[in-house]
């Protein structure tokens, strides 16, 4: 339901992945992890639900200082 809600609100499909896993399923874990990494790579860096304003404001300032 969480996945459905987030996708409904416009977060990229696949940004959240869920799986039933037992501690004995090592191979499946590796497979799922790899697939997820692959998927997220395709999606690129997260832009939504990332603290934007504050981080970028500071970032800009630091850049300016560096230029000086």
């Amino acid at each position, binding site marked *: 339901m969480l996945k459905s809600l987030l996708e409904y609100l416009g977060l990229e499909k696949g940004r959240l992945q869920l799986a039933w896993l037992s501690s004995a399923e090592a191979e499946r874990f590796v497979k799922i992890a790899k697939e997820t990494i692959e998927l997220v790579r395709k999606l690129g860096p997260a832009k939504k639900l990332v*603290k934007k304003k*504050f*981080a970028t404001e*500071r970032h800009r300032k*630091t850049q300016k200082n560096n230029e000086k």
Partner: protein
Amino acid sequence: MKDSLNNMKYIEKNKLVELIKELKKDYILIAPVKLKNFVLFRELKENEEPYLDFLNSRNSPKEFFFPQTENIVEFEGIIDKRVSKLEDIKNKKRIILGMRPCDIKSILILDKLFINEDYVDNYYKRLRDNTLIFGFGCNKPRTTCFCTSFESGPFFKEGSDGFITAIGDKFIIEGITEGGKKLIEKLENADKDMVKAKGEIEKNANDTVPSSVKVEKIPEKLREMFEHPIWEEISERCLGCGVCTYLCPTCHCFDIQDEVINERGRRVKNWDSCMFPIFTLHGSGHQPREFRYQRMRQRIMHKFNYYEENFGVIACCGCGRCITQCPVNIDVREIISSIKNVKLTISNEK
């Protein structure tokens, strides 16, 4: 008289947009804007027009002097030198256009807290000093307005740098302070008829305010009522949310919080509300205001007794926002009148 006539200017309503465009070159312009079906004060964006046919705004313009979130310190990593956000506060002058007299009164009330001989809140003061306020007379007060109960009224001008009155298709603008006068000096002078019409409206204005509360002796009486059972009665339907305090133009309690993201951090002042239990919760778990009635009591006491005792003025301006927006319709006018009706017995008088 002659001098005061010179300070009376006017502008056609449909010319206001041009004036604003002109002012925007040198000033940040804050004005009411229509959103969905309510009106909010905010900084006018590019090409955004103010909406002046409003009763009062949903939010209170106090947020332009006392922002809900305001950086007080910014830092990177651990600091070993003084850091201050003060230099960064935009020095660009601001104009608040169309602020209602009740809201201006609230700023005069807040001044006493933020700028006093004990300590000066520099952040508040800086914003205050950088802002010109153009008040806007209330031709149509709401049924929940009771500003006249607090030495104010729909055409109360104290605190305004200029004052706008809407008459027909014109705005009459009166310059009050030097800054205000200067801003409108290029406008055309109002003629005698306009000034007369304006005078007429102002004359009977106070009678147009439909609602009132009698606050005489309330502060003194409240002093004796701390232990009174009335608080439990009044607060029974309270949900404990922060609507009343966050929309209130005189509520000023705040929290200080630190926030760090990737080694960059800031310390901020955030609005806080005495209606939230966490407001007074001690680190040890001790809680001086555990119950809803204690928090409600704090809110009413703070406005109508403590503030009066500390600063000589009641911290309410009669705007009615807390009444219209409370999810369960708790009405401060009713609270005051029930306080008035309480008969103090000997046991309440310590």
